[in-house]
């Protein structure tokens, strides 16, 4: 079977990464921003898997790393959602523009 | 334990004492006992010092001892006293005692107030006995922060702004001092073979001229800010105007003297070549301060501003004496520090007493103080006469010593500086007598003033203690001259040895 070239995978992960960045910068809803962060993480995961597969096929570090990132991301999501819920209770909104009391 | 450490320990133990008790009255009594004990101890120490000298002690510093504080940086708790530091310690003890007495009636946050006062005095004592530049700096800083709080919390008028200005300007001064002493530390390593903060060791090192110049200006200007040297003096009038009476007394009586002592002991003593070469700049600044300070005083209506500006003028004599670099002028500078310290404390005490009663400090709104409150009026007149240099009081002795010391230089530049400085005492007479004429003499200006009471017992004692100091220096200056003579000679010789 013809292998998918590495470049394609990298293009995919870059696209995912910049989509995530774009989403993070433009979305005002914190949940959406969180989702964008997940996209970024996933793009990194793809990179790890791809490089592991193409550069060091006999080793498993890249896959381990990906698994770690998924676990950490899960923890991070739960934390982030807890924060967002608390913010919602206090400000009655999840719009990030409204939550700007930590300044000056 | 070294006996000198008691100077720091006594106020510290007093602090512990007042932290433990609750009753305001007890706090006052403990503070009073502590500061009285300190005066007794300082006098005893002086007696010991004199008898040791008579017994033939020739070391430059007596009661010397040194302990490691922080070895990696070579910071030691190195203490010792000579005649100059002893008179400064006596001054501090007397002013603190008087300040505590004057503040007897403070009702707001009594514990914190006396805590701050005592902390300030710890800083001053520590500064005067330190022979290590780092610990000296440590104590210098210790004396700054309480001032900010004293003015900010217990002050009057635009107290926040003025407290802030004072703290920031003094902090700038200490920043310069810090740069200077860090510079000395590294310079001692590069050029003297050993990194050290120790004044005694540093004085034996010969640093290159260009290094000395930089460090001289850093430390002289830095300590100059504390002294209220022109043009870094503006913290003084504003700070005083807002400060509570005792804080004003400390500020002008002790704090400005920290700077003067630093000018002599650090800036001039440790950078002898630069001092000889560049002190003329500070002669100019001092002359300006003396003359122009006196002129600016003429225009002040607020008695506190008047005394603050007059302090700028009088402290100019300290800077002038130090910058003149003759033995007699050094002696004059030291005497002027002591004299001005006591005198200005007395002046602020008198002004504070008037303000507490009449609720105004404007000389044109007051009048008839002498008639209504003879004791306070007399205290004011005595302080004024001291300020204008009347013989029999301390101001005369110190100013004349500075003049005689300055006259040793023959150049026309020095002559003009001395004559201008001498001319300022005429202007001093003008503003003192104007204020006396308006505020103290004459008749009372408002009906309600007829009910005002004369000084209470605590105020009387405070005034009497300070007046005794003034008169003692004024009538028996030889006592003090003998105490400091050898030490100013030593500094002078040091400056002319290289």
């Amino acid at each position, binding site marked *: 079977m013809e292998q998918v070239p590495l470049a394609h995978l990298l293009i995919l992960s870059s696209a995912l990464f910049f989509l995530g960045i774009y989403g*993070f910068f433009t979305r005002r809803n914190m949940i959406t921003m969180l989702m964008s962060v997940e996209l970024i993480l996933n793009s990194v995961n793809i990179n790890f898997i791809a490089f592991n597969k193409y550069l060091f096929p006999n080793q498993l570090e890249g896959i381990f790393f990906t698994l770690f990132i998924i676990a950490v991301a899960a923890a991070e999501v739960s934390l982030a959602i807890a924060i967002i819920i608390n913010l919602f209770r206090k400000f009655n909104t999840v719009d990030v523009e409204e939550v700007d009391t930590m300044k000056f | 334990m070294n006996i000198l450490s008691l100077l720091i320990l006594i106020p510290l133990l007093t602090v512990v004492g007042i932290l433990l008790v609750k009753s305001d009255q007890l706090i006052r009594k403990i503070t009073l006992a502590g500061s009285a004990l300190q005066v007794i101890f300082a006098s005893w120490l002086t007696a010991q010092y004199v008898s040791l000298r008579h017994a033939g002690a020739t070391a430059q510093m007596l009661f010397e001892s040194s302990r490691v504080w922080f070895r990696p940086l070579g910071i030691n708790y190195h203490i010792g006293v000579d005649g100059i530091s002893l008179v400064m310690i006596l001054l501090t003890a007397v002013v603190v005692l008087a300040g505590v007495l004057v503040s007897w009636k403070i009702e707001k946050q009594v514990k914190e107030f006396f805590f701050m006062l005592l902390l300030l005095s710890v800083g001053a004592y520590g500064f005067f006995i330190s022979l290590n530049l780092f610990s000296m700096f440590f104590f210098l800083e210790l004396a700054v922060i309480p001032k900010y709080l004293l003015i900010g919390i217990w002050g009057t008028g635009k107290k926040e702004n003025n407290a802030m*200005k004072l703290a920031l300007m003094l902090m700038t001064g200490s920043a310069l001092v810090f740069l200077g002493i860090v510079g000395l530390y590294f310079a001692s390593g590069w050029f003297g073979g050993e990194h050290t903060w120790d004044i005694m060791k540093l004085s034996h090192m010969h640093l290159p001229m260009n290094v000395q110049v930089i460090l001289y200006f850093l430390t002289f200007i830095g300590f100059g800010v504390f002294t209220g040297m022109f043009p870094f003096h*503006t913290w003084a009038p504003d700070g005083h105007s807002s400060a509570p009476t005792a804080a004003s007394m400390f500020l002008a009586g002790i704090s400005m003297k920290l700077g003067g002592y630093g000018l002599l002991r650090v800036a001039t003593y440790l950078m002898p070549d630069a001092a000889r070469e560049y002190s003329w700049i500070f002669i100019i600044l001092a002359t300006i301060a003396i003359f122009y300070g006196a002129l600016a005083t003429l225009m002040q209506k607020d008695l506190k501003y008047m005394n603050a500006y007059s302090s700028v003028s009088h402290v100019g004599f300290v800077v002038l004496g130090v910058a003149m670099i003759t033995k007699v002028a050094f002696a004059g500078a030291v005497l002027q520090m002591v004299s001005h310290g006591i005198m200005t404390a007395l002046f602020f005490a008198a002004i504070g007493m008037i303000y507490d009663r009449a609720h105004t400090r404007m000389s044109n709104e007051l009048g008839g103080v002498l008639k209504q409150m003879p004791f306070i009026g007399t205290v004011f007149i005595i302080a004024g006469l001291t300020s204008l240099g009347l013989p029999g009081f301390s101001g005369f002795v110190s100013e004349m*010593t500075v003049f005689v010391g300055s006259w040793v230089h023959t150049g026309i530049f020095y002559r003009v500086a001395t004559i201008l400085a001498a001319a300022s005492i005429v202007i001093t*007479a003008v503003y003192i007598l104007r204020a006396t004429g308006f505020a103290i003499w004459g008749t009372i200006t408002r009906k309600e003033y007829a009910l005002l009471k004369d000084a209470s017992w605590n105020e009387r004692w405070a005034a009497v203690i300070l007046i005794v100091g003034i008169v003692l220096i004024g009538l028996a200056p030889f006592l003090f*001259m003998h105490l400091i003579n050898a030490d100013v000679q030593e500094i002078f010789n040091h400056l002319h040895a290289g």
Partner: protein
Amino acid sequence: MTLDNIVLLIPLLPLLSFLLLGLAGKHISVRFSGVIGSVILGASLVLALITAYDYFFAIGKQGGEFIPYLTAQLNWLPFNSDLSINLGLVLDPISVMMLLVVTFVSTMVHVYSLGYMKGEERYTTYYAYLGLFTFTMLGLVLSTNIFQMYIFWELVGVSSYLLIGFYFSRPSAVAAAKKAFIVTRFADLGFLIGILMLGYGAHSYDFFTLIDRLSHPGSSYLVAMTGASFLGMSTLTWALILVFIGGAGKSAMFPFHIWLPDAMEGPTPISALIHAATMVVAGVYLVARLFPIFAVGAPDALTVVGYVGAFTALFAATIACTQTDIKKVLAYSTISQIGFMLFALGVAGWGPGKTEGFTAGMFHLFTHASFKALLFLGAGSIIHAVHSNEMKDMGGLRKSMPITHITFLLAALAISGIPPFAGFFSKEAIFSAAEQSNPIIYWVGLIAGTLTAFYIFRLYFMIFWHKTPDAHAHNHEKGEWAMMIPMMLLAVGAVFGGFIPFGDFISATGKPLELPIELSHIILPVGLGVLSIVAAAILYRKESDVPQRIVNALGGFYRAAYRKFYIDEIYLFITKKIVFKLMGRPSAWFDRNVVDGTVQKTGSLTIALSHAIKRVQSGKLQAYTMYFFGGVLLLVVLLLYKFA
């Protein structure tokens, strides 16, 4: 008791009086405080008499010459091994003479004040101040050291200040006290600088060391000080002129005379003691003290003294003729008479036959003390009776105040130089000294002397004649013995003081000196004096409009003299307009706005800057991420640029 202790006690007794009455005054009954002060002063006077006897007739003379006797030495303020301020007491002819004058007049004034100040609110304080003044004045005359003299010089200044301002609820008294202190302080600046110069040049402040080092031609110190010159005059001349400026301030010489007439705001006995007999002659005493240095080292300075004295003598006498306040007339008269003393010193020189002026000046100081104090005490008792200082409120008082009338007349004759009263002898000595050495000064002095007789008799006739006495007036003097006895005692001095063979005791060299009285010299001054008295009698014995017509004829000159030649206005202009407006106000403004302005500006600039950059911290999460991402991008670009 040894002489040393006696001499020490003379100044210490008045000090004791001051401390006793000043510190414990509240616990002493008002009735006794005056008596205590007077008794203590009386004791001091007795001791002074003993001292004078001892000095002049027992210990003072060695080898036909009076030499100084030093005692109670104290190294007060050591500056260097060879320079220090020493305190001490000295007896020599002039200090002993001053000792007598001060203690005598002071005792008289103490006693007089028992009556004059009776019922005053601050009676005890008044006596305390009197004690303080007497102490400081005695300290001044007994000084062995020029710095010591400066110390007491300032102290007499302050006691004078306190006494002028004794009625401190009166604004005019406050102003006068202030003026007196500040004007003399200004002059003292010259004194101080002169002292510094002398001390620097001669390495000593002791009078006798100074004289020793600076009055022997060829002494190395003298050569050094006369060798160096500044603006055409030698250092020594400058130093002595500066010292004399101090003396001129205290002695109210032109242009520093303005404080003395105002000083009359004080109680009248004070004017008699301080502003007529003792303190104001301190300047004369100072010049006399340093006379050998003046005469040998700096004759130019002595010439300045002479001209200043002569000019002031004439100037003040002119003003005295126009004043209407009796104390002001006496004040200007004092200024004028001190001018006489100073020009007498000024015309003297060093060497045989030239020192007569010195003795004459001292002699006049001595006689003047008694008759001028008497005139003031007389004026005091008149004011006490009439309750006014203005001449127009008086007149015809000879019946109701007989003792005052007689004593005043005697004093007036004495000051006019009519033989055989005291003033005649001293004035003759002055004129004869001046005639020999300086004709200009002689003629100026003669005119001033003539005016003296005129203004003093104008005063006399205006007070005691002028109007017809009120037949029913009761005797104002009844029961005022405390006031009358001092006046009578002073009158004795005014009448007989001139018969003392003054030259035997006091001379510049210490050797006896004959003061010749020749008829040819007497005729002119005495004749002019008598003529002026007659003129004054014609003009003022009866009320008439002649004086007013003369005033109108003189016009502008009279007005100028009446307004004291506008010197006060000039001073006021200098202080108010120049010192306050042109120097004080700009300094204060500069300090507030430029120096402190810089500080405040630094603060506000820092705050403005922080306001500007605080926007970066917006609290917006996405903005922060944007910065972060931008930063990463920048780094990436930099790295690529570096490695690619």
